[in-house]
């Protein structure tokens, strides 16, 4: 195991670090999640933390947040060794975390959310005090101002769009840390994974702001973004530190290689048309839904990947949901295999061979409490039946095959799906549909959301494979690069209207061409 350590490639910076991790190690049972990791963070520095899903990033962050206690190793703040017994200790020490999962109370106002930050550190009887709404509002206004947000603190968090919630999260993390501490460290755990591309600009401005008063640990899967915002980058692989690099001295390609341990496969995509003049699997003719989208024409052909791009609120998600039968159209028509459909529902869609991978994986895509095996066989279970009943043995065996085939880790299909990492959960969701022999249309709503580059690569190759197996794929991508990389057809939507259409067998649009029609 010392193999990696001896290879670890560390570029250090002179001066006393404000936060330093020394030989941190933590094990869960036989699993060593983080092994002998050391790195420093300096004043006013943005440090990127990257690694595949399961590389130990989240565990490391939880150690910094006082959730887990390391088995060995020390954390030093401004040269002094500290022990975090609970999240409060870490908050007080000036480490604020913006979690990957939202950590706001959706039923309360922004003011209350900010007021409850680090609450318990006040003396015991505080809970029996009056809640001073005025004071809470004013202090929230100040906290928001600090991060450059003009939100009204009286608004309920549940009524806010995602990007604004993220701002509140940051204000929250900042607020704790600036109470007492000179040099706060703000940890942003994949803050951009749920944001649309154009929204990340705002976040990058945020980070620049935070940098004026403290340091940042920035965790992200988007390597280009990491390169843009970070001063130095820490790379983890399999729980070990593989490199600490100055951003100015690496390329995204280097980082990918360090993370994965192998080079990125540069598939030269082909623009060859595989199919011609066939009846499309699905065809929309002037389809519309009042207030969401109107007059959409679209053809999903077997073996082709069609992507819709557009900003939030462009109506593209609604189009997908309507095709899958979750929502309905109220004008125009939809044809499946050349026949117009009348009573369309999710149930009929599935029997016709439609599959849907929703964007909100945790809420809509998986049943977290069920085992991975049961999630895979949730919809199509014919192959694992014995008589009238489902054979648990066949179920596990069939799941095992999928685990091998698409490299789902850890190889424990009987484990609850919620305990897998995001990338592996997404593979399970895909397996659920790919399992069907009659899969004819696959609708993917942000399939790469929150996945590390390695997992994204696997998922993309699964999508290509599905298309190669005569499935018509409809894709809503996270980034335009992703879409340009994989799609055969691109439709651009804006405010519920189709504003552009590109056939990649003929056209070679650039990101700019797409953006132009989007906004």
């Amino acid at each position: 195991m010392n193999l990696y350590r001896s290879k670890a490639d560390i570029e250090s910076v002179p001066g006393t670090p404000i936060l330093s991790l020394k030989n941190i190690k933590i094990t869960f049972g036989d699993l060593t999640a983080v092994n002998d990791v050391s790195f420093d963070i300096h004043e006013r520095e943005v440090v990127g933390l990257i690694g595949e899903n399961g590389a130990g990033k989240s565990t490391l962050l939880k150690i910094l947040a006082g959730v887990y206690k390391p088995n060995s190793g020390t954390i030093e703040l401004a040269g002094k060794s500290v022990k975090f017994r609970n999240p409060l200790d870490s908050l007080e020490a000036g480490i604020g975390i913006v979690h990957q999962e939202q950590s706001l109370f959706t039923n309360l106002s922004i003011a209350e959310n900010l007021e409850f930050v680090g609450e318990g550190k006040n003396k015991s009887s505080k809970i029996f005090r009056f809640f001073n709404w005025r004071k809470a509002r004013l202090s929230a206004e100040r906290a928001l101002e600090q991060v450059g947000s003009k939100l009204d603190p009286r608004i309920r968090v549940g009524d806010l769009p995602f990007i604004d919630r993220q701002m509140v999260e940051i204000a929250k993390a900042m607020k704790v840390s600036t109470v007492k501490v000179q040099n706060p460290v703000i940890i942003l755990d994949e803050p951009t994974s749920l944001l649309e591309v154009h929204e990340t600009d705002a976040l990058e401005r945020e980070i620049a702001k935070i940098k004026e008063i403290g340091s940042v640990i920035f965790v992200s899967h988007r390597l280009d973004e990491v390169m843009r915002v970070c001063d130095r980058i820490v790379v983890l692989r399999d729980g070990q530190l593989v490199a600490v690099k100055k951003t100015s001295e690496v390329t995204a390609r280097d980082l990918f290689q360090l993370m994965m341990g192998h080079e990125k496969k540069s598939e030269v995509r082909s623009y060859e048309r595989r199919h011609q003049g066939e009846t499309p699997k699905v065809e929309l003719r002037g389809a519309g839904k009042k207030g969401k989208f109107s007059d959409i024409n679209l053809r999903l052909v077997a073996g082709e990947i069609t992507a819709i791009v557009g900003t939030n609120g462009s109506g593209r998600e609604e189009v997908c949901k309507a095709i899958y039968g979750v929502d309905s159209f109220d004008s125009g028509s939809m044809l499946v295999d050349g026949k117009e459909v009348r009573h369309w529902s999710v149930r009929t869609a599935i029997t016709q061979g439609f599959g849907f991978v929703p964007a909100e994986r945790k809420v809509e895509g998986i049943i977290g409490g069920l085992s991975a095996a049961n999630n895979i066989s949730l919809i199509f279970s014919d192959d694992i039946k014995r008589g009238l009943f489902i054979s648990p043995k066949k179920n596990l065996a069939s799941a095992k095959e999928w685990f091998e085939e698409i490299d789902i880790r850890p190889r424990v299909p009987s484990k609850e799906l919620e305990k897998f990492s995001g990338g592996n959960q997404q593979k399970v969701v895909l397996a659920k549909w790919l399992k069907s022999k009659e899969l004819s249309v696959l609708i993917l709503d942000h399939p790469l959301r929150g996945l590390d580059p390695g997992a994204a690569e696997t998922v993309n190759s699964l999508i290509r494979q599905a298309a190669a197996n005569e499935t018509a794929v409809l894709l809503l991508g996270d980034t335009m690069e992703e879409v340009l990389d994989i799609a055969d057809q691109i439709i651009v939507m804006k405010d519920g209207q189709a504003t552009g259409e590109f056939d990649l067998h003929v056209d070679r649009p650039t990101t700019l061409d797409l953006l132009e029609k989007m906004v």
Partner: protein
Amino acid sequence: MDAQERNEQTRKRALFKSATEPLALVGVIVILSIVFSLSNSRFYGAVNIHTILEQSAIPLILGVGSTLVILIGSIDLSIAGVMGASAMSFVLLTPNTRSPHDHGIVAPIAGILTGAAFGFASGYIMSKFKVPSFVVTLGMWFAGQGFATILYGQTATPYMTNKNVSGWSPRLFAGIPNAFWAAIIVVILGFFILNFSKLGRASMAIGNNEAIAQTAGLKIDRVKISIFTLAGALTGIAGIIGAIQLGSGSPDVGKGSLFVCVPAVVIGGTSLAGGRGGVLRTILGVFLLTILNDGLIVSGVSSNYQSGVAGLILIVAIIFALWSRSDKSGVSK
């Protein structure tokens, strides 16, 4: 659209939603009242209105406690038993057929403290031993019932002898029965605690997401224990009023109250999942149930049919009232 405008719009939309949501329930209550008044003019008489107010006092007081408990995502099933325990403690300390001693103000205080003690015990066991409130309070129901039965003993029923005390509940003050005054005070208190105390806001936070509350450093156990103790004290008050209305001490004074109180909270619009709802909404729920119950009796529906009819009307009323806040995802539980 600039930030100011967007802020305004978001707030207006939220305000409109919160204002219109209870309207459906108000509508149902008005319709029921009209129907009952048409079937018997007595329904609208002063006497019957006093009856309705007096009858709604206990469910209102219990409802406030239950609302708070449900908002933190727990449930208190113990109210029937705890009411019995409080009622017995109270009655035995007022002049009664067993003992003529008048302990004055000590009696109601003892009743309230008994309730608070049971509530504290539930809250403590639940948070320190990590047992679901459902199980703990189910046990506490029987513990309370047992405590009351021991106090009741083998001897004759203790009737209250001080007419001043036993006649307190329906007596009018400023045209409103005393019991209802008590309920009004409790509702105001509950509303105040929920909205203007740290305890109340922390309860909402915990009900919304306990894991987040934990990382925010909220003292979850302390909040939960406080809420259960408070709810217990309110149950104690309800037990005392129950005993006064009965005129005697009985371990069974709270019988059936759970099946009015929890539905009232839920009909009012407080989510059983916690974190959503409020004290004022529960008032509507209580009134709906009390009016339904009273109206059927006044309209002379045969007692054989009363439960059945009440059940049917209730279901229809709830479907109607909840229409406006049906879950967007179409999932019901």
